[in-house]
Structures are given as structure tokens and as C-alpha cells.
């Protein structure tokens, strides 16, 4: 165990993040008090990037876990492994973070089974401990440890929701798509495309977001806009790049596709 090097989880280069409001200050304050933080917002609006940026800024290692339906508590906490010489305990990502003082980021936490999410409870209140019942150890969290979860409230299923007892352990920050100018500057910065084209891409994004709820479950995310810009940078014609990166991924509805295709032709001549 002593050979484990937490430094590998440190982020060396600054991940680009464009602040939209005072979220950086808010997060810093939450981190100073080691409050657990919940990030809410639609897909592809920059939640994960924000966490990376903050980890870099605070110079703390970041351990990210993408949650899924099959994840069990021991996938988070750790388990005994059998090998030819007997058994060996292997810390899970949550235990690692708690032991070594990292920021643990549970991405899309509603995807995990509800019994799984309960294991984070003792870490997220005044106790700040993690009991490893199989190993018979009580890990007291490192002073630098912080838990961050992200969650997309747009799922619209009453089954996929966090328990109140889980929700009420976090300070929450709401994210949304940035304003048009900011989003254009983000697309510019991320893909290195010129600002006029970036502005036009954002315009298409706005069109799709207006259609949300009318056959579209989610609008076009900033991430997809960056993809489209990247394709354009590689020499693809803007109209084709937009169709490929923006329209085809998000819808199978012929009417919506046609409307968005028209929007693309109206924006890019």
C-alpha cells in the first residue's frame, strides 16, 4: 500500500474552463470548508470540466468514477482479491481518495444503484469516515478529501432520482449552457476555430435548445458544438460537419432533423 503514488491523479496542465458566474469562488469556499458538492445541469455543459479545473486550481489530485447500473458498493470501497498467495485487499477509488486526500468525483451518480450511494453517507457528514466492514477498518478521511457528485435532473423518470437523505448532504451548484457570446468564446478556445464560425455554431445550438420538449429530450450541448468546430477545423464543410456532429447524434425524428438541417443552411451559406 505504501507504494501507492497519489500524485498520478494530479492534473498537470490547466484544463480550460470559462467561468460563467461566481462558481469558482463558491467552489473554493465549499472546498475550504470541505463541504460535499453536487453539480447539476444538462449533459455536456461543462460539469466534469469544471471539477478538473478546480482540482488543478487547488492543486489536489482528482479521482473520477463514472457510475453505472451494475456498480456495487465494493466497486467504490474496495475488495479482497484472491491470488495464488492468498488474499490481498485492494482499495476502491473512494477509499483511495479518502486515504490520500483527493477530490473524489462520482459522475452521473443517479445511474448507480441506490444501495451503492448509501456508502458515501458517513463520508459526507461531520463524521468524515469510511468504514470498511470487510477489512474491519475505519478509514478517517484525509484533511484534503472532498466528495463531488454530478447529476442531470433532466432524466424525467421518477425512479431515477436521489434519495432525500443523499441529496441533503450536499451543497449544490446548478449549471446551464453559457450565454451565446461566452459559449462562442468557449468553442473558439476549445477547437481553435475563428470566432465568426463559432458564433454561427452557437446559433444552431440555440435553435435546437428552443425545440427541447417538442421531440428533443436535450438540446445540443456545448461539447457537441466543440466537436462540430473540430471537424470544421479539419477541413470539413461547415454544413456537413454540423449535420454529422450536431443533428444526427441527437435525433431520429425526421421533422426535427429537417428543421435543424434548414437552420444549418440558413446559418452557413
Amino acid at each position, binding site marked *: 500500500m505504501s507504494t501507492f503514488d497519489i500524485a498520478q491523479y494530479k492534473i498537470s496542465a490547466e484544463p480550460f474552463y470559462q467561468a460563467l458566474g461566481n462558481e469558482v469562488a463558491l467552489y473554493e469556499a465549499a472546498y475550504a470548508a470541505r463541504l460535499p458538492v453536487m453539480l447539476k445541469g444538462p449533459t455536456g455543459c461543462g460539469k466534469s470540466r469544471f471539477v478538473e479545473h478546480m482540482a488543478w486550481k487547488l492543486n489536489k489530485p482528482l479521482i473520477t468514477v463514472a457510475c453505472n447500473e451494475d456498480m456495487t458498493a465494493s466497486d467504490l470501497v474496495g475488495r479482497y482479491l484472491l491470488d495464488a498467495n492468498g488474499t490481498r485487499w485492494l482499495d476502491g477509488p473512494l477509499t483511495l481518495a479518502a486515504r490520500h486526500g483527493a477530490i473524489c468525483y462520482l459522475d452521473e451518480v443517479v445511474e448507480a444503484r441506490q444501495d451503492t450511494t448509501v456508502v458515501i453517507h458517513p463520508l459526507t457528514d461531520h463524521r468524515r469516515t469510511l468504514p470498511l466492514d470487510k477489512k474491519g477498518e475505519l478509514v478517517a478521511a484525509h484533511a484534503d478529501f472532498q466528495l463531488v457528485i454530478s447529476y442531470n435532473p433532466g432524466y424525467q423518470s*421518477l425512479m431515477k432520482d436521489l434519495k432525500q437523505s443523499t441529496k441533503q448532504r450536499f451543497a449544490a451548484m446548478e449549471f446551464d449552457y453559457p450565454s451565446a457570446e461566452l459559449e462562442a468564446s468557449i468553442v473558439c478556445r476549445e477547437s481553435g476555430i475563428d470566432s465568426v464560425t463559432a458564433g454561427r455554431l452557437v446559433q444552431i445550438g440555440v435553435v435546437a435548445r*428552443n425545440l427541447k420538449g417538442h421531440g428533443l429530450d436535450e438540446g445540443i450541448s456545448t461539447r457537441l458544438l466543440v466537436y462540430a468546430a473540430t471537424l470544421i477545423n479539419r477541413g470539413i464543410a461547415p454544413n456537413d460537419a454540423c449535420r454529422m456532429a450536431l443533428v444526427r447524434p441527437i435525433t431520429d425524428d425526421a421533422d426535427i432533423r429537417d428543421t435543424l438541417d434548414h*437552420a444549418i443552411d440558413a446559418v*452557413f451559406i
Partner: protein
Amino acid sequence: MQDAHRKLVCNFVRVQSVFDDCLAHAQMKLSDAGVDAYVDGAQVICKMGRGEEPVLAFLEEMPLVAAQLGENVIAEVVEFTRKLARTPNSKSIPPFLQSLAAAARHLESHRLFSEYLQLVWQTMERTSPKVHGIDSMYTSECLPDFLKNVPFLLGQLSLGGLKNWVDYGIKGYPNDPERQRGYFMLQSADSRAVLQRERHGTLLTDHERKLDMYLRGMWGSEAVFFPYSLAFDQLRKPSPYLDDNGIHLPDVYDDFLPSSPCVGKGGVRGIDRYRALLAHVSAHRRWTKPLMADNFSPFQRISIEVFEDSRVEWLAMREYPGLRKLWCTLHPAPAEIEHEDGVSYIRHRLTMMSRALLDPGHGYTHPLIIKYAGQFHALMETGNADTKSMIDLGVHFISESRLRSDSSAKVYFDQTEIDYRDDNRLMWRFFEDGDEEVYEARPRKAQPDEQSEEAKMPPRLYPEWDYMAQHYHPDWVSLYEHLHPSGNAAYIDQLLAKHSALAKKLKRIIDMLKPQQKVRVRYQEEGSELDLDVAIRSLIDFKSGTQPDPRINMSHKNDGRSIAVSLLLDLSASLADIPAGCTQSKLELSQEAVSLLGWAVDQMGDPFAIGGFHSDTRHEVRYLHIKGYKEPWGDEVKARLAAMDAGFSTRMGAALRHAGHYLSHQQADKKLLLVLTDGEPADIDSRDPQHLIEDSRMAVRELDQQGIYTYCINLDPRADSYVADIFGKRYAVIDNIQRLPERLPQLFMALTR
């Protein structure tokens, strides 16, 4: 010529008198062989002994047809006429021959023309009355009427459309010759409706959803569309316009094919013509401020309109540059022409101006046009041009370019119609007598329903939220609960049978969702039993010295669903409407959807209640019990569903509270209240539209506090303005309402998966 003349042996005086002219005409159009065939044909028709009419029609029409389609067609027509003469329908021969020129002009190819002849023959056969299956004894009454209408019909329909139209007429009235005749004379409503359906081009009804999305997506606005027909109004062509109700636009647009080479290459699809129109109208809605019309002469007004149209387009194109190409294609490009005396060129001049403002590559040399285009663009670039500043440009342009001939009665109209632009009626305000007077609506007393048919249960009183005062009106609404009247349960079974394919599809999903009681959870480190497959695999791994998987146990868990669902149906009067493009009313579609949902939920075994509501002022909100939670999905429930009816208004808050009241008493982990509605909350005693919306929003919030998840399914495509206010993110707008029966159960399952 003498030679040819000798061949036509014919004693009809009128034929002889026109023959020379016709022959001369034919010789201009046709080759020598063609002329021979033409004269021979006339001879044959002459010898049929059906009078002079057929011969005259043949002589007049045939050269044009043959010139268009090739000379072989002459023999074909003669042969067909001969066949027709042998049936009892010889009086159809003149109209048949007269229809040929129009048919040739529209069909343009010999192959299609032959199909047209076949169609005429079939129409004749199928509309002739039959006795004992023998049909050669009676004349077809419809055929002459049909043939007279062919030129008009082919102007509207493709040959395929014409075939469908004919087919409908034949099949629709097999035993009713009078109405059939009315159909073929284009007099019956059916006939016009089918014609409308079969028109070539892009029908508005087929694309309304796309256009809705276009407005919503690109312009962030909504509008009601009112289609008008171009087909029957020959005198004055209606033009699109915008008024307080919505956008009025043609019911169909053909694809636009550029007629003159200066318009650029490529046509415009019908749907894009609609979009061009909507873009123009939306630009007006966004940027035009109304002006007082009384200060300007009519000429000044149209000139100001040209500049204002160009201004809003300029602004729109700054946002969506692709619109320039679309508009440039649709905008006429009149050439600079020599002016004749006594003709007013004012429209021509203004259209050139408009073109010059739209299209930088206009190429006009008229000094005033260049001057004003420069001024216009300079002004636009400054960024503070508004509707008022267009007055200056418009008034000066029209006075500086004024010619004496401008007020002539004869106006030059060629290439001056810009058909994607509306008539700007909202741009002008007219000051009229009486504008200062204020009319106040007289307050109307809320009248409770006096004649209640049956002895009622005492009402349940519910509060209502007043958002202006920020408090509840206590015991404000009286809610009466009734048992829903019953109808015929077999009707619902029929509906379910109709959707049996869909039901099978749902059944598959249900089987996957259905609680299986015991479910095996594999790959567990700790569990109640050893999972042998995994254990053996792990042991092999272990023995062979590699890392074994420790998750060798399995356990069982009870996979029970514990959801109580209440479905609240809005039974207000608007439910009886038949939405555009549908054949069934919303009520019927809702009935189908609810039946399917009821069946599906019954299969899942969740406790499920159905209630309907409507209201007639706050003194009488009716909550109609259709199904209770423990009531089985049986004939009684189906009978009540079958009797579903629409009436009165939508006071949603009280109904929500009442349904929530029952739901909160259910034992379940999750409680779901589904609301199926087609409009915003409204009642006749509530003047402020916001009031009932705010009340419903409060009701939803109260339910939320009780742990009830409320979800709205809205059938109103323009629901966005209020539904999010009430339900937050928990709503779905179904704008493709015909798919409601499919969507409702799917939504339910997605919500509870």
C-alpha cells in the same frame, strides 16, 4: 393544299368554312406526313356520323397536341375516338377532344398522354350504369362533366393525383349517380377536399409540425397558422398576411422553379417557400413598429413598405445569412425596360428597388436605385435604423423617382409580385372615429348550474391560490364528485382490438418491466447461494494461477414495483376539436390512448385510478370517477370510458388537489399523478388568464410536498408559454397528436422504469 382538300369529303358547312384556316395552321406546325394523318383523321371522325362538333374540335385541337407530343399521337387519338363512338357515350367525344390540348400541355410526354387516354376509358367504363354486369347499354353521365373539368384538374393535380381523385369519385358513390355527377362537376365538398388532398406541391397540413418547429427553433416564437386556398379564388389572388390571430398562408406551395435565367440556379422546395414566408413574417414581428397610415399617400405607403421589408430582411440575414440565397431565388428580378406611354411603372420600379436592396449583385444602372441602395446600406450599417427611418427613404425615393405616368390606370405588373412577403397590414395603424372611446366589458355574474339533474353529494371545498394577493381564498371552489355515466364497453374493446399491433409491442416492454417477484442478482461477493457457473470459472482461474473473480455468489431480491398512479383527464369542451391533419377528434384519440394505458397498467399490476374533470365556474367543478385504485379493469370501467364526453372549462387546480387527495392515501413508495390536458387552465368566471395558471402551479407544488410526482401530457402544441410555469420540467408536449395512443403508454413506462 388542293390535294389535301380533296381528301376531306365532308358536307358540314361550318367544317368547310374553317377547314382552310385549320389546314394552314397544321401545315405550319406539322410535317407533310403529319398533315396527311391529320386530314385522314378528320375524315374518319367526319364519317362517324356524330355531327359536326367532333370534327371541329379535332381540327382545332389536334395540331397543337401533335406538335407537343409527336405526330404518332394523331392516329392514337383517332383510334380512341373511334372506340368511343362505338359506345353509348358519343356525346362525350367533343369534350374529350377539347380536353386534349390542355392534357398535352400539362402532361408533356407521350407516355403520360397515353395513360391519360386509358384513364378516360376506365372512367367511362366504371361510371356507366350496369345491369346484370352488362354495361354497354347506358351512357355515363359523369364523363362529359369530368372531361370538361380536365383542363382545370390537370392544372392542380399530377396525373397520379388525377387518377386518385377519379378513383375516389367512382368508389365513393357506386350507387348514387346524382352525387357522383356532382363530384365530377367539382360541386360537392368531398370532391374539393379530395382535390385538395391530392394536389401536387407541399401541403401545409403535412408540414405544420415542421413549420412550428421552424418558428420555435429559429425565431423563438409561436403562431397559429390559417391556411387559405389559392385553387378556387380566380379573381383576386389572396396574399399571405399576419394579424392578431396568427399567420395566414397558402394551403399548398408548389416547388418553385426559376422561370427566368437571371434568378439564379436551382429551385426552391415547397417547404422552403413556407420557411421563406415565415422568416419574413417573423422578421416583421421582431423588428417592425407600427406607423400611423393617415399621414401618407398610398404611393408613399407602398414605397415605405418596400424599404421596411428590406430592412427587416437585412436584419434577419445578418442573423441567418443563408436566408439571402433563399429570398434571392424567390424574389423576382425585373429587367430594366423601355417605358411605354400611358402605363404606370411604379410597381416595376419599386420591385427593382427591392431587388437592389436584397441582392448586392443586382446589376441595375438606374441612378436613383443605386443612390438609394447606397443610402439604405449606409443607414443599416450604422445599426440604428428603425421603422421610422425607413419613412424618409421611402418618401424621398417615391417623390424623386416620380414620373407623370405613375398614376395611369394601366399598371405594369410583370415580375412584380413578391409572393413570400405578407401584405404588411400590421405595419399601419389607421385612425378612425371612435378610437378614443373606451369600451368596458360588462361584468358577468357567475351562474351556477341551476338545473342539476340528480341529487348531488355535498361538495368538497378546496382553496384557490391568488397570486396577486399572495394568499389562498379559503373554501373557494366547490368540487362535486360524480360517477361517470356509462356507455358501451364493447366500444373500448374495439379500440383495443384496433391497436392490437401496438398492444403487442407494449406487451413485450411490459413483460420486461413487470415485477418478477424473485430476481436473481448474480456476481455478488456475498449472497445467499453459490453461483456455480461463476464459481467453477473462478476455481479454474485460481488453479491456473491467474486472478480469480471473487464475485461467485448470487442472491435474490424481490423486485416489486410500488407505484400508485392516478390519471387525471381534462374533459373540457376543446377536447372535441379535430386537430388539423387528423381524422379523429382529440377526444377519440384520448379515449384510445387512455384505453391502451389502462390496459397496460393493468398488465403491470400497479394500482391505477382514472378521473376526469371539467368546470363551470368555481361553484361547480365536476370530478368524474372513471376507475378507482382497487377497481378491476373490467366492463364497468370500460363502459365509463366509452361514454367520455367533452364540455365546459378547465379549472385545473381544484381537480389536481382532489386527485392528489385520493392519491396521498394510497400505500405506495412512489405516487404518480398524470395529467392529460389539451389547453391551459381557464374558466368562464376567471378574467385573468394568469390566475388559474398560478393556482395550478401552486397545486402542483402542494402535491410535491406530499411526495406526489405530477407529470403533464399536453396536447396543445403551443403549450410552452404556460405548461412549464405550472409543471416545471415535468411535462411532455405531444404535437404529433395522432401518435398519442402510442406515446401515452410509452411515456408512462419511461417515467416508471
